[in-house]
């Protein structure tokens, strides 16, 4: 155990230094295309440490694709991604990714606890033994999202909101420094939304970076510190106060967002 904890201590030290200086994720010129149609075109973005960042934009704007391409889940045509100042492969263990809930089959034979343990697989390796320590970590993560009582349920028996919380717990179990969430609030109940927001704010308090694809424009100022607005290209990036403006919304959504809807958001016009 001693050598391991030693390495852990060192990397923690690095992590703290990183938080002060180096962006958790810096994306340059990222381009993704399905066939010849670009889904994400030449996007530059920098996700800040100790902040909650929302990625907003209309349907088909490439928000989810941006996250997937940044992680190498879908191939990119061009572009460079660095994570805490390192190439992606070197720093992958510091990222936790929460895919869209609808992307998996919830009838899969697995329990809530088993799903959370999946977050520990890279640490466990192929044949590493699952110890009580790992089980305890998984239970602690479930507890953080209020799902400890459901640990041994088959995941298909959970409500949509509960399933989303299980996915978040799996990310928490990874003990990452950067969290990338794809639509964590899609189709969840109000109680789950509150629970997720409070976990994300706690992560920010611990100095972690959180990035979420987000759909509900009305809650952006409440939940997030920073925003990346995109529609295939990046349209605006910065703090919510700077970048989440009526003009930026109009450019990002084109005609797809009613002017009255923008007015209801009560944003200051620059």
């Amino acid at each position, binding site marked *: 155990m001693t050598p391991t904890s030693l390495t852990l201590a060192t990397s923690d030290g690095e992590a703290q230094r990183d938080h002060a200086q180096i962006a958790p994720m810096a994306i340059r010129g990222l381009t993704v295309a399905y066939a010849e149609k670009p889904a994400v075109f030449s996007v530059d973005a920098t996700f800040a440490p100790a902040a909650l960042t929302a990625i907003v934009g209309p349907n088909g704007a490439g928000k989810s694709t941006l996250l997937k391409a940044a992680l190498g889940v879908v191939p990119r045509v061009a572009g460079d991604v660095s994570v805490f100042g390192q190439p992606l492969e070197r720093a992958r263990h510091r990222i936790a990714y929460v895919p869209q809930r609808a*992307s998996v089959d919830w009838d899969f034979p697995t329990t809530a606890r088993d799903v959370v343990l999946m977050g520990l697989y890279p640490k466990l390796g192929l044949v590493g033994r699952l110890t009580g320590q790992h089980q305890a970590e998984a239970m602690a993560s479930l507890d953080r999202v209020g799902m400890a009582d459901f640990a041994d349920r088959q995941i298909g028996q959970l409500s949509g909101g509960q399933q989303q919380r299980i996915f978040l717990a799996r990310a928490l179990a990874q003990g990452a420094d950067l969290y*990338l969430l794809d639509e964590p609030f899609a189709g969840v109940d109000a109680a789950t939304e509150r629970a997720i927001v409070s976990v994300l704010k706690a992560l920010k308090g611990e100095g972690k970076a959180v990035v979420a694809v987000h759909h509900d424009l009305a809650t952006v100022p409440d939940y997030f510190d920073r925003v990346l607005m995109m529609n295939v290209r990046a349209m605006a990036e910065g703090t919510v106060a700077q970048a989440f403006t009526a003009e930026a919304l109009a450019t990002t959504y084109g005609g797809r967002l009613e002017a009255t809807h923008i007015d209801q958001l009560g944003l200051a016009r620059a």
Partner: protein
Amino acid sequence: METLAGPFVAALTLQAGYNAALVAVGAAMLGIAAGTSGTFLYLRKRALVSDAVAHATLPGVGLAFLIMVGLGGDGRALLGLLAGSAATAWVGLLAVEWMVRRTRLSEDAAIGAVLSVFFGFGVVLLTVIQTMSSGRQAGLEDFLLGATAGMLFSEAVVIAVGGALAVVAVMILRRPMTLVAFDPGFAAAQGYDVRRVDLAMMALVMAVTVIGLKVVGLILIVAMLIIPPVTARFWTERSERVAWVAGALGGAAGYLGAALSASAPALPTGPIIVLVSAALFALSLLFAPARGVVAAWLRHRAFQRRVHLRQGLLALARQEPILERYTIRVLEAEGLARADGVATEAGIARATKIARDERRWDVAREIHQDVALTGRYDGLTPIEDVFTTDEIAEFDRRIGAPVAVGGGS
């Protein structure tokens, strides 16, 4: 029955001779290997790829035979034939992968194309071999439908060694395979190479197919890969257990099937194994505790009964006529109403309670804005399960004193 039971028991207890014992043990080991390695293919929802792989072994058998004869050797050398079948199976597998990845063909179409083309080519090769003057080709048809006449010791060794390696490979690869089967996007984000994990999964299935070819044949080996996991899924909700239960079921089917076929002279081994496996599947489909058809039907009936009971009681409370015969039968069976739909004493009491609970829910919705609690109203969950006695007392205080209903008649 004595005539069949005697030899069957003898075969079961490995007393029916050396050859029958060899087949039973070999088939059991093949069943274990096929069940465990087929599980992840099934969980990945790519079970039919194994069908393409199995059919793509046939040209390899023919080509290997021709090459070995051409080199002046024995065309029937087992390892040579298996190597040949593995080679073309791998090409077939890569062809499916390539078509799905690089063209607009969906996987089912790619499977259909590869399966038929490779199988057709294999049949042509076998036909050509049949017409060759050399008399040494006998036995190649076994690769199609499996051998009927026992097993050579060398074949049993191939199955034992290959099967054990396959089970070990499943143990080593179970985490990446589970992750890729459940959530490939997350697996990729974690740094797993999804394509390589998929290929490893397929290679495993291919290896089991190749070692099992001689026993059950390429047409039926697919059943040994798929039926046990599907059967095991009825009995557990955890993926690793599905794999081990599938191994146990596959082993049992192999052993029982081989023993059955040994106990009657003309019964072919492979098809009997598949039929035993299918029987285990049918039993599970019907009688598995949570996912079985009977359990689901009983649950549905119980639910329907609760709905009718509640609606019947509400009708009694509101003194409305009960129209559905089933509702009256349910009330009658519970002793709550007579056959003509008139409430009994007990029925009046229950109806009063249920009507009052409806009022309580109305109040609960007024004072509790929390949807998490009031959202649990489905008309069937007792209010006592959702709210505390103090809260219910508070609802009652707002409603006023209990009022008896439905008692007049």
